């Protein structure tokens, strides 16, 4: 299973963190620090896999963002790369040509998308369409909520 997913910029600024197991803040910070230094130190044209303690670290760079996934040692590295890629595709579909700023300013959306795709460290849904559909449906619900709220405001 997956242990965590991190998104960070080339400068090492964290853009998203997802922990699939519960961990204390200190442990999280240590991992983030280790990951950013390790991944950023990699030479270009190196392979995308690393060994870190008992975990496999799979990372990939998309434009200015590094996507970094920590998986347990028996996992398939190529599958982990696919997962990263699939997540990028989902973001792309949602934001339309996603860029780092989209994720910075709508960081909660990035989490919601991730939550529909992965859960508890496992792949939840392998079909892109179904993931998109459920995100849309939740967003609709949210908009309903907000419009409802305005109604209350106006007529309550």
């Amino acid at each position: 299973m997956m242990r965590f997913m991190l998104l960070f910029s080339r400068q090492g600024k964290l853009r998203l963190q997802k922990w699939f197991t519960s961990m204390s803040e200190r442990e999280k910070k240590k991992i983030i620090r280790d990951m950013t230094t390790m991944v950023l130190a990699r030479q270009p044209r190196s392979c995308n896999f690393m060994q870190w303690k008992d975990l496999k670290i799979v990372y990939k760079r998309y434009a200015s963002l590094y996507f970094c996934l920590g998986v347990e040692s028996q996992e398939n590295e190529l599958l982990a790369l696919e997962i990263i890629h699939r997540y990028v595709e989902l973001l792309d579909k949602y934001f339309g040509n996603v860029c780092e700023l989209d994720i910075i300013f709508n960081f909660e959306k990035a989490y919601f998308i991730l939550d529909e795709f992965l859960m508890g460290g496992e792949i939840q849904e392998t079909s892109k369409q179904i993931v998109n559909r459920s995100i849309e449906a939740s967003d609709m619900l949210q908009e309903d909520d907000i419009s409802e709220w305005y109604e209350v405001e106006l007529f309550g």
Partner: protein
Amino acid sequence: MALKIVKGSIDRMFDKNLQDLVRGIRNHKEDEAKYISTCIDEIKQELKQDNIAVKANAVCKLTYLQMLGYDVSWAAFNIVEVMSSSKFTYKRIGYLAASQCFHENTDVIMLTTNQIRKDLSSPNQYDTGVALTGLSCFVTPDLARDLANDIMTLMSHTKPYIRKKAVLIMYKVFLKYPESLRPAFPRLKEKLEDPDPGVQSAAVNVICELARRNPKNYLSLAPLFFKLMTSSTNNWVLIKIIKLFGALTPLEPRLGKKLIEPLTNLIHSTSAMSLLYECVNTVIAGQYSCSVGHIKSHLLCVQKLRILIEDSDQNLKYLGLLAMSKILKTHPKSVQSHKDLILQCLDDKDESIRLRALDLLYGMVSKKNLMEIVKKLMIHVDKAEGTTYRDELLTKIIDICSQSNYQYITNFEWYISILVELTRLEGTRHGHLIASQMLDVAIRVKAIRVFAVAQMATLLDNAHLLTGNMQRNGICEVLYAAAWICGEFSEHLENPVQTLEAMLRPKVATLPGHIQAVYVQNAAKLFATILKNQEGNTDSTAAQETSQMMIDRLPLFVQSANLEVQERASCILQLVKYIQKLQQKDVEVAEEVSALFAGELNPVAPKAQKKVPVPEGLDLDAWINEPPSESESEDEQPKAIFTKEEPKHSRPRHTEVDEKELARRREARKQEQANNPFYIKASPSSQKVYQEAPGVEHIPVVQIDLSVPLKVPGLPMSDQYVKLEEERRQKERAEKKKKEKKKRKEKRSGRGKKHDSGPESEEDITPAHVVDIVTEEMPEVGMHLSDDVAQEDQNHLPVRVKICICMFCLCRPLADSEKLPVRSHRAAGAPKSSAEDGEAENATPQEPKKKSSKEKRDKKKDKERDRKVRLRCWKHFPPSGHKSDSRSTQSEGRTVVTFLVFPLPRKVCDIQGNLQDGSQVVVSVIFENKSDSFLKSMEFNVLDSLNSKLQRPEGSGPHDGLTVPFQLPPGVSNEARFVFTVQSIVMPQKLKGTLTFIVKNEDSSTHEKLDFKLHFTCTSYLITTPCYSDAFAKLLESGDLKSSSVRLEGVNMPFHHLLARICFHHHFSVVERIDSCASMYSRSIQGHHVCLLVKTSGQTVSIDAKCDEPTLLGNVLDEIKQTFSQC
């Protein structure tokens, strides 16, 4: 009411939302911390308001700040408030914040149980979904226990969206609350056949995870998964299923068989690399069972992996190497044939790929390629930029060379020079490792000592180059080894005075204490040797000068801060002063001084301690002091970051533990001192000094940075050895070819015209010089230790592993003469293409060698067996380097059981001549299955002669065979030992025997039989026993010995080679050598003394021999003659 709401909304208009916060942070790059602290103040205000929208906004901002690393745990309760909002928008934010910020120790979690339960049963599926997602991140054992039932109900929810989330979270629940697994499992199993593919894949994921932890329980699901695998087209799911099978196959070999076909189909058909890789991994995991189908699929895997490694995609290269290393464990040979490719990977830009390739190399070395591989690694060491990678290379080189008792090293001079070259690495942490290797080799390989001592003396002479920047340098550890070797084996030193001078230089005082101590002690040993040398001279001033030098230089060490150094130095100083006094009175002291360090250091087998009887009344388990209090053991074991088991460190780092322990004690002491009103606390500065004091490395030393790699003059370059070795082997090969040709001509001129010796095989390589690896199980009690330093060294040295007798034979060179008849015989007996022959030879890289004529016989037997045992053929493994046609070699199958026999006396160490033990001989037999079939129920039987009997277990008849305690899968070899009782050892013996076994194929099994002969030479009853010249002289004078002599003509080799050969093949040791004359000694297991006087003049060698048993002597001489007539 309306006003209030309007007021709230107006408030909100002035609030920052998340976007404003992010923008603000980006605009305040200089004073980010300050800006954020004002934001946090605002957020605190917002959280105090009643309006849930405001609160949700605040929580959302907090979640962002949490990601930036700010502590938001104070807002945990507000997060719970937002979670419990009835509106989905806020609930979503609340759960997101909780999943990011909560962990097991967050105390408000227990307030959430009811809220979550409510959300789980919400009519809105997205409410439920959001609750499940959040829960998956922060579920605690309590929550798992309380909500397990609700979640289990959700697994049968009408909406697939909820079902799949419920299935996935169930895994987390199982982890936190294992009792839930049993009741929930049937439902989980049902979900494997859920109509919704998403739910199905979720169930596969969960069961795959469960099965990885405890595969046994999930074997019963195999048929179901098999069905899923053959029907599913979703690669994501397929990968998981195949991974699951990977966990199950080791438990159920039949499953492995069944899987071969679908897996091979997938490997052939899929275009998805991830799926291909998973299939290959699972096939490799199932390789423990050895059916024919597996061999095919295994071949396919190796092929595919080669393609992966050759790919330009770095990822595939990396994974290919990773998978190769798994194959290496089970099928080393098939990986070895890809050596070229793996060596190429060492040049890769990517460090992780290089490290993987290094791992592989470890398992791939053989006698043949060791030098080449290490040479390549040495080049990389020079190039390596980062110290971590270089250190990794260094340890790998040493690991590779020293594995299985230096099994692959044919030339120890080369190895010593490699070690010396490695000392030039600046800033490595592994000085200690190099040092221990130097010590180990110098002690165990007697023949190398002269060379080693010369090298070490040069090292000591150039010590300034190593210690230049000692502070960050662990390399000075090698000086420890150098000093010790020079001292202990000082008789081999060319210029002992110079070395002594080097060891007493003032600069030595900057070395770490433990190294100085060794310096001082070994200076004393050296001094003793020098005295001995110099006293023979008429001029006594030289000796006195040496004493004076000691007296001048030692006071420096007497002042040392290190107690050990101080103590040794002052003791030795007084001793030298006394010696000087005697010298001035012209008293001869050398003999007495060297008596201080007399005796040879012998390696001690790890089991030796066990043989020391425990004195009566000594209870080793009893506590000497009171056991430490409970509190001491509490704080050990730091918790792993993840709950997983921690990977075991192969090399326990004692120092680290000690440091931790020290720090802990220091802490405890401080605590105690702080609480003690009578204790005057040290000022902070002195505290610091105290903490830093223990490291000698803090002594300020000017660092000299040398950018140019250091070339120490006079040190050898290992490359030369590679070249020399190459030449030597070439010469050997040429000679062999010449002889082969001759033989062939004699036999039949028409046959095997193109019979080339093919690729050089493992057994063709003979060690360059005779290396006497100490193999005896050492004397139980009273080991000779030259002095207390040596004793200390005993502790520091790596545990000396007793080399088993079989290994012993592996190390022995195979004389050129032995192989030739075999080859030609083979060529004449069964015509084969040369490539195939080469392959057959290659297939047995570990074929043990033992110098005696009996092997020839054995080989002949092989041949006979070749013809006798014909089995149904299966596809062969591809011949090395013939990748392309690997699947086409449909040649005749052979069952060749290599069956090499070496009778060797057991208890070689028992030199007391115990007749009881002296009548026993242990025969190690290596059984190698060269066929493609499985061999089992092997039974070994020998026709006893009057003199020699196979020892059988009590109760069995005199003609019963002994069951060989193992079975042999194809390509596997194993060793069994049989004990023989021998009455008289004066004559060589031949025993006839048979081996019966069952050959098992996939569809049939046959009973087969092999006949063989065991040949016990007289030599094999001899034990290498050192003998001092005075004892030797006494023995000769005693007149109890009968003499005999033999002349060898046309021996064309240097005298020391000749001696080495006798030592090696006939277990003699040289007592004394003067020019072209040497005396040698050996002893039989029954205590017969055998003394030789070997003289050479031109090409004639005369051997005069004496022994108390003339028949034995005659036979031994015959055997020696035979050895030399063959070369």
